[in-house]
């Protein structure tokens, strides 16, 4: 159980976080492919994936040179910052302070931009660049998540498998229905991912400063439960104290 807990939580965190990012990248690539043509869309995406692979190949082996407690501390602190940012936004979206992310709207916006550029001589180049940027940006987040949730416990392979499963699933669903995955409950996913990454961050930063958590890896579940209960209490309290009449500010 104590070895299964970190493996399951690592795979789940990498899968859920990557799922959100892949959906966002897929939306833009799909918009480019449908509006312009598939050649610049796939070329841009492939170039971005190649650059991401190069980043992993260059920086991945360097992590093996860092002492494990230092790695846990640094990765833990980065995960606290990263996870709390997601959690904050998810809480604010849940109470209506920040508008929900809309993949249909993102798709329409990208399509409109590409249509405006249709007569430009560089239209293919601009379309490919849009695809490249989308995949690179979301991909950098996926790479960080995989390295962060995997490296501190030597489970990069499991984290990679979680991310790969998310990629395959989004591609399969997206190509089957051929439209942006607008029905994905993105804020709920982001809420859970924010909870998981924040919990990982607190757990590893604690290990990095020398804490022997009671129950070893099982403490991760307890930390997750405490962070989840506190966050849900915040949502409930904010809804009661600061009721929002409009749909929130788009961010």
């Amino acid at each position: 159980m104590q070895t299964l807990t970190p493996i399951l939580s690592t795979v789940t965190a990498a899968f859920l976080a990557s799922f959100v990012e892949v959906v966002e990248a897929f939306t833009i690539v799909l918009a480019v492919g449908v509006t312009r043509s598939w050649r610049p869309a796939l070329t841009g995406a492939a170039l971005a994936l190649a650059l991401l692979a190069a980043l992993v190949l260059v920086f991945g082996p360097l992590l093996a040179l860092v002492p494990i407690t230092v790695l846990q501390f640094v990765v833990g602190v980065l995960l606290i910052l990263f996870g709390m940012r997601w959690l904050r936004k998810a809480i604010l979206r849940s109470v209506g302070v920040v508008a929900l992310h809309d993949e249909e709207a993102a798709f329409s916006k990208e399509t409109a931009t590409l249509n405006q550029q249709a007569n430009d001589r560089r239209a293919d180049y601009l379309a490919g660049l849009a695809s490249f940027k989308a995949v690179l940006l979301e991909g950098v987040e996926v790479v960080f998540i995989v390295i962060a949730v995997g490296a501190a416990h030597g489970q990069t392979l499991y984290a990679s498998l979680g991310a790969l499963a998310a990629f395959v699933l989004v591609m399969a669903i997206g190509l089957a229905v051929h439209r942006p995955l607008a029905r994905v409950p993105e804020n709920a996913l982001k809420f859970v991912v924010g909870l998981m990454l924040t919990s990982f961050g607190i757990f590893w930063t604690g290990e990095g400063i020398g804490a022997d958590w009671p129950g070893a890896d099982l403490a991760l579940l307890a930390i997750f439960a405490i962070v989840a209960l506190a966050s849900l209490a915040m949502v409930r309290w904010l809804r009661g104290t600061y009721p929002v009449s409009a749909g929130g500010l788009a961010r």
Partner: protein
Amino acid sequence: MSVIRFVAKEFLGMFVDDGNLALLALVLVAAVAAAVKLLALPPLLGGALLLVGCLAILLQSVRRAARGTKR
């Protein structure tokens, strides 16, 4: 070069949305780490302080954002 700058900017944006939240979290981690390493605070107590502190910082951040929203 602009691609590298672009990626670096986006990478920083991955960690910092509300600057106040990021700063307070870093101060909390630094204070707890210093208390454990320099003042012999038990590490487990340090871990517990991290948990409580992160939740307090998160509460302060979402409360400030909710109060600042125009209604």
